[in-house]
């Protein structure tokens, strides 16, 4: 076969792989409910009849969301009565409420951590519902301010957990084909709670003559009864309708049924921890953009209700009762708006999930304009109409944003994403909003505050609009991760061999500056690979991505087939990946011996083994033995590199990443260091050596990569790279330029 025929065959193979991947991606998208068309959408009742699907989780969580509003609403309405009965001033009550708000904002994070560790979202939902019911009952027996403080803080924790638990549970309980409608219905339950709570408080306090204590006890008992409805709630498992269906797509294609664990790394060793997941989420462009939008929305939405209270009181002389009715009316409009939105939103999602963000931007912009006009019109009927329409529009924002955000991330990360959404909305935006609107209110009065909502509203709309184009790529990226996982599973189950390290499609940015573009790099067991390139080509950055010091904005890093892209650097160290950074890779203020001991301590080796390793380092580098009690900062450059390289002798990694070993060192020293690298490699450690010196690198390694401007420009045998003048010229010219200087 001629070279040309070989090349064509390889190209055809690559095209086939790409085509298969695109087919799989399209199928996976369809299974996730993104069909590209609004047509053929199944009715919700058909979705609810799918085997294994039941209306019960929606009803149970919906009922919990109704009663979740009781305590907060009752407290906000009955604050004056509580203040008088306990004999405490409004300032003290305001302080307690501020603390409660803080707890609501912060509670989602620990609850997400518990949900991740224990995997018991359903149990946590039930427990928190019983807790907040008991808290409501306890509120009725409070006699001192700090008793009130404790019950409110407990209420803050339990109600704050709802954000983290309910929507992710619903996402896992229902197939993607009906999720927008399911989340809208759930939001409708919540709005119904906002209708019911004022009516119940009015009924109990005005018509049944209950004191605030009686109201809390009654609402708590009702809540307790409602919580029992949710007792049969079970956790459906994470990713049942997402990750699992994407995996099934690949298996269907390959006609496989294997579900075994693959690779030699145990899943527990690479399961992302809580903060690793949060950090990984923050790298997803849609999430980042929506979180910024949430913070801006928080400025608008969180203090809006409070200022609307003042507006109705001061401008329209409405007392507590009529104000309660006004809010119940707004909540009733919310229900109607959500009912109208469900089907339409589902169609938009099917076409392109990004369209939901676009819709969110439009409704937000219109809503704030209506609020602004509503603050100025002289007729109360017009106020009702304008605020009603605005409330209806704002109501559909929550499910629109939730479904978009929760769809572009792996299902196990949904509680974390929900927690972040809550924190950015309530904690960040709410706090800024309270300060912003208070300032406006002092200067321009309550009408000025209502009008000023135009600023965060329009800003939030623009940010949401800008996120539209990010959703589809992020969804595809999430699908690709699962597909890649499955493809690797297929390779291993068919007896294929996996490389020790495989980086695929790596993008990396320092802030807004992208420095790596679609980089692929593979290292086999025991291989010695040279990574060459001009200054600033991105070699050291690529090493950082492999060792976990830097996290890529796209692409994957797999170690023995297992995805470690977002694993912490110290956990990669335990897997056997060690990096020796360029320059002075030592702790300057510590002695040589202490440096070596510190290297060993990172993997908690026993003392005897560590001492033996240190002795081995001294045998390998006698000059270090002579200077064992000398501070590392006083060593020469070569000695410091010896000390840095000793890290590999102590840790005995499976993969050693060396950055700029020879830079600025005398040839004799470089020779000693390279001998040691060869020895380490000969003992089975794979090595990636970043070098500026072409001669050194290609003399040492059989396999070389060449990088230029953040891209891998060559991947092949070192001998072949030597023949590529077009690439190497740049390095030689740079080297010559440096020498001339």
């Amino acid at each position: 076969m001629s070279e040309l025929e070989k090349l064509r065959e390889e190209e055809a193979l690559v095209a086939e792989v790409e085509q298969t991947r695109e087919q799989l991606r399209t199928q996976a998208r369809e299974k996730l409910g993104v069909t590209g068309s609004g047509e053929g959408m199944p009715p919700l009742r058909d979705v609810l009849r799918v085997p294994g699907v039941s209306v019960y989780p929606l009803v149970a969580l919906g009922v919990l969301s109704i009663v979740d509003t009781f305590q907060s609403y009752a407290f906000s309405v009955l604050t004056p009565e509580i203040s008088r009965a306990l004999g405490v001033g409004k300032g003290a009550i305001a302080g307690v409420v501020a603390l409660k708000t803080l707890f609501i904002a912060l509670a989602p994070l620990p609850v997400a951590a518990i949900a991740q560790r224990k995997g018991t979202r359903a149990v946590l939902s039930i427990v928190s519902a019983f807790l907040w019911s008991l808290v409501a009952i306890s509120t009725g027996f409070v006699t001192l301010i700090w008793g009130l403080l404790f019950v409110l803080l407990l209420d803050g924790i339990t109600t704050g957990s709802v954000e983290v638990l309910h929507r992710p549970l619903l996402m896992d309980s229902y197939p993607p084909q009906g999720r927008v409608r399911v989340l809208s219905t759930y939001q409708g339950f919540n709005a119904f709670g906002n209708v019911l709570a004022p009516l119940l408080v009015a009924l109990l306090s005005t018509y049944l003559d209950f004191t605030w204590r009686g109201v809390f006890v009654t609402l708590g008992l009702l809540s307790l009864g409602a919580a029992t409805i949710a007792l049969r709630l079970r956790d459906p498992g994470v990713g049942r309708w997402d990750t699992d269906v994407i995996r099934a797509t690949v298996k269907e294609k390959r006609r496989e049924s294997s579900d075994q664990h693959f690779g030699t790394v145990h899943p527990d060793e690479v399961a992302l921890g809580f903060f690793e997941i949060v950090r990984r989420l923050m790298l997803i462009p849609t999430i980042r953009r929506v979180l910024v939008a949430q913070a801006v929305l928080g400025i608008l939405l969180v203090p809006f209700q409070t200022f609307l209270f003042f507006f109705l009181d001061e401008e329209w002389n409405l007392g507590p009762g009529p104000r309660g009715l006004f809010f119940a009316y707004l909540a009733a409009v919310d229900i109607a708006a959500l009912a109208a939105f469900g089907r339409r939103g589902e169609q938009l999602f099917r076409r392109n999930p990004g369209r939901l963000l676009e819709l969110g931007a439009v409704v937000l912009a219109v809503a704030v304009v209506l609020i602004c006009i509503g603050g100025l019109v002289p007729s109360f009927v017009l106020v009702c109409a304008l605020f009603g329409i605005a409330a209806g529009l704002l109501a559909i924002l929550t499910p629109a944003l939730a479904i978009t955000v929760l769809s572009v991330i792996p299902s196990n990360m949904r509680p974390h994403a929900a927690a972040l959404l809550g924190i950015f909305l309530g904690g960040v935006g709410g706090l800024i909003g309270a300060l912003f609107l208070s300032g406006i209110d002092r200067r321009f009065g309550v009408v000025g505050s209502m009008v000023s909502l135009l600023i965060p509203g329009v800003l939030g709309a623009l940010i949401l609009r800008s996120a539209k184009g990010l959703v589809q790529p992020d969804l595809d990226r999430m699908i690709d991760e699962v597909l890649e996982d499955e493809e690797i599973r297929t390779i291993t189950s068919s007896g294929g061999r996996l490389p020790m390290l495989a980086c695929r499609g790596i993008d990396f940015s320092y802030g807004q500056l992208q420095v790596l573009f679609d980089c692929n790099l593979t290292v086999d067991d025991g291989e010695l690979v040279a990574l060459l390139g001009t200054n600033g080509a991105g070699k050291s950055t690529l090493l950082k991505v492999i060792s976990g010091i830097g996290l890529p904005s796209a692409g994957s890093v797999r170690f023995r087939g297992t995805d470690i892209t977002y694993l912490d650097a110290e956990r990669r160290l335990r897997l056997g990946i060690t990096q020796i950074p360029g320059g002075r890779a030592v702790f300057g203020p510590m002695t040589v011996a202490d440096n070596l001991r510190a290297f060993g301590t990172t993997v908690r080796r026993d003392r005897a083994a560590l001492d033996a390793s240190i002795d081995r380092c001294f045998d390998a580098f006698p000059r270090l033995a002579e200077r064992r009690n000398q501070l590392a900062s006083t060593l020469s450059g070569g000695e410091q590199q010896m000390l840095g390289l000793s890290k590999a002798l102590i840790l005995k990694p499976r993969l050693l990443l060396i950055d700029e070993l020879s830079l600025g060192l005398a040839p004799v020293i470089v020779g000693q260091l390279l001998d040691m690298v060869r020895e380490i490699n000969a003992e089975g450690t794979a090595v990636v050596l970043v070098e500026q010196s072409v001669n050194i690198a290609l003399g040492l390694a059989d396999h070389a990569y060449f990088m230029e401007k953040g891209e891998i420009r060559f991947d092949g045998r070192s001998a072949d790279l030597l023949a590529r003048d077009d690439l190497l010229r740049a390095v030689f010219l740079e080297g010559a330029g440096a020498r001339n200087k």
Partner: protein
Amino acid sequence: MTRTRTRTALLLVLALVANGCAATGIAFRQDDRLRFVSPDDRAEVTLPVRIEWSVEDFDVPSDGGFAVFVDRAPQPPGKTLEWLARDDDACRPADGCPDAEWFAQRDVFPTTETSFTIERLPARSDDRREFHEITVVLVDDDGRRIGETGWTLELQVARDE
């Protein structure tokens, strides 16, 4: 270890909550022994304004009297009016303090009448509509608050331009 710590934390929280709560001496149904006669709630008034109320099942002065609080919270149930002076280092050692003058300076007015005239009220610094809250509680002969109900009337004060 973790379980022990969790239990300890839970017990601590329960103890604190229990300490801040009570099962006796608290009312779940509204106490309607006192009703405001005039003016109406949220009525627009000009100063001076006379507040009138009626009372049932409470004999004055044999059962006690009233304490009127203007724009401030009353003392907690079971506490005497002197409790309001607990943090006033100048008043506590002085003989006869707190007296009627001390209370009046702090917008607290003990009375055995069923009416009370408010001569003046502090104006709001901003140009908002001016709402003031009048709270009446029942007190015994020692000024100790009876029950935990505070009857409240909200007034909108119109100032002469």
